[in-house]
């Protein structure tokens, strides 16, 4: 009796899970299939299978539309932003989580408030600030150095991601038992050594989570990239915008969907690489245990 009951329950749960999985897998598979359709097929029923495989969509997106070059830019910006972000956020989170000092509460609030700032309305002031700097440097060097600079874009990305990252990392640091630091201090290690050799490595699960989250937001970001990089060094999402034709001109749908897949694939690959560690590092909601 008891067994039959749990058996039914399990079957029902299985069914629900499988249904939800289908609801997710089918649309994503659709994007992949659409990317090899011919242009004319996009005007008909979107759910038909491709009549033949038009791999040239990818070559044309890669070369003619410059997605290959933009991919390089995106890899550079995303990698640099992540490196900067971790270097800056990790020590700050550690100190905020595990040290007690006079202004600690203030700085916690300072970073918390940052969570509510939306990049969409601060992008113009940031642009104007960088442009002001560029005008100054144009007088001295003959050219600006802040705009059209992928390094600068990375710094801006890293900065705007600080509140959320510090929030996640310091939450994680709070869950670690104090005995590790005490043991390190006993062995005569200083604050820097303790942080670098003992505490930072312990935060690895949380760092992986932070890397994945921020990878996704940096990789897909386009509003800042559009404004701060007005030149040719476009990132992938901005390049993608250019693939969707303006009104009044023919849309190369095959190329557009191939572009969508080119943007999507690296995120899928990274996710599958780190998905096992993902749950471990996500500690929000304060002190536990």
């Amino acid at each position: 009796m008891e067994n039959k009951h749990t058996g039914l329950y399990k079957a029902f749960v299985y069914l629900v899970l499988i249904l939800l999985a289908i609801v997710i897998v089918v649309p994503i598979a659709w994007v992949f299939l659409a990317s090899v359709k011919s242009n004319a097929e996009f005007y008909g029923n979107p759910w038909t299978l491709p009549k033949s495989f038009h791999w040239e969509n990818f070559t044309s997106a890669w070369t003619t539309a410059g997605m290959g070059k933009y991919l390089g830019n995106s890899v550079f910006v995303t990698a640099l932003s992540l490196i900067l972000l971790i270097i800056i956020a990790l020590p700050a989170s550690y100190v905020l989580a595990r040290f007690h000092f006079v202004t600690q509460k203030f700085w916690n609030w300072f970073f918390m408030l940052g969570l509510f700032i939306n990049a969409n309305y601060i992008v113009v002031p940031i642009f104007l600030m960088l442009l002001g700097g560029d005008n100054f440097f144009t007088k001295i060097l003959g050219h600006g150095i802040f705009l059209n600079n992928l390094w600068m874009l990375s710094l801006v990305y890293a900065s705007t991601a600080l509140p959320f990252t510090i929030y996640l990392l310091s939450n994680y640091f709070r869950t670690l038992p104090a005995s590790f630091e005490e043991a390190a201090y006993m062995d005569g290690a200083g604050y820097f050594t303790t942080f670098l050799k003992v505490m930072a490595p312990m935060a690895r699960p949380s760092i992986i989570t932070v890397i994945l989250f921020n990878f996704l937001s940096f990789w897909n970001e386009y509003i800042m990239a559009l404004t701060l990089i007005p030149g040719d060094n476009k990132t992938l999402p901005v390049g993608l915008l250019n693939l969707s034709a303006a009104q009044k001109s023919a849309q190369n749908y095959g190329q557009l969907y191939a572009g969508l897949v080119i943007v999507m694939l690296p995120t899928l690959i990274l996710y599958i690489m780190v998905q096992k560690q993902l749950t471990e590092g996500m500690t929000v909601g304060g002190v536990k245990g």
Partner: protein
Amino acid sequence: MNGHAKRNRSIFIVLALAPAIILMTIFMLYPVLSVFQMSLYRWGGYSPDKEFIGFQNFVTLAKDMNFIRAMQNTIVLIVLVTVVTLAFALVFAAILTRVKFKGVGLFRVIFYIPNILSIVVISAIFSAIYDPAQGLLNSVLRLFHPSNWQGVQWLGNEKLVIWSVAIALIWQAIGYYMVMYMSAMASIPEDLYESASLDGATAVRQFFTITIPLTWNTIRTTLTFFVISTINLSFLLVTAMTGGGPNGSTEVFLSYMYKQANTNSAYGYGMAIGVVVFLFSFALSAILQGITKRDVYEF
């Protein structure tokens, strides 16, 4: 602690915090302050003449029916997305952590995938799903209807379209929150469930008496995330999928801000909307934190 060690400690704290504080000040605090400042001006965005008008922009906002509708839409989306996603994510997280059967890992991997997609992809997917003539949704529904059935105008009906947007946002968010709740649930000791089972508590009862109370802190925190991310993602999705239409019925906070600041040559007015969005999201989160405050259950 002697003086030397104390000094070392202070140096460490300052060095660790300084870079983050400096960058935050330059790239977030200063821009936000200038947004606050611009909201007090009438400025088209290009002409050199800026006119200081005090809080006039905010007075106009309070009477602007289009803004009020954008605000209503945003609130509807926040409520819908939060309630539905929260419920689904909690239940699925509980199932995937509690029920032991084959394939749990695979489901977990799949459920998270929508969250890693760019909003452009999501917009393309849901446009194909909602297509009135040949979309997936209407094709499935047509199986249960007579052959002359007109189909549902998922993006054409002004009362329905906000739900269609909400569903896309929920689809994209469930996996993210599910993984968050799973990581909280994973740390609940197994013996709590065992003793509850011995007392004859059903799985549903255990969910409400053990799982929910012990993940309460995480749930509270995610409420803030819901507010922030719904405001942001609804803008990106609406811009890509409906353009705020039909006739403004999916206009949200930031899309209206963008229209006013850029299309309608009212940059100062747009920045006033930015200020309202900032204050609104902060206040809403604070209220949510206040009313969800409970004694933390220890285990």
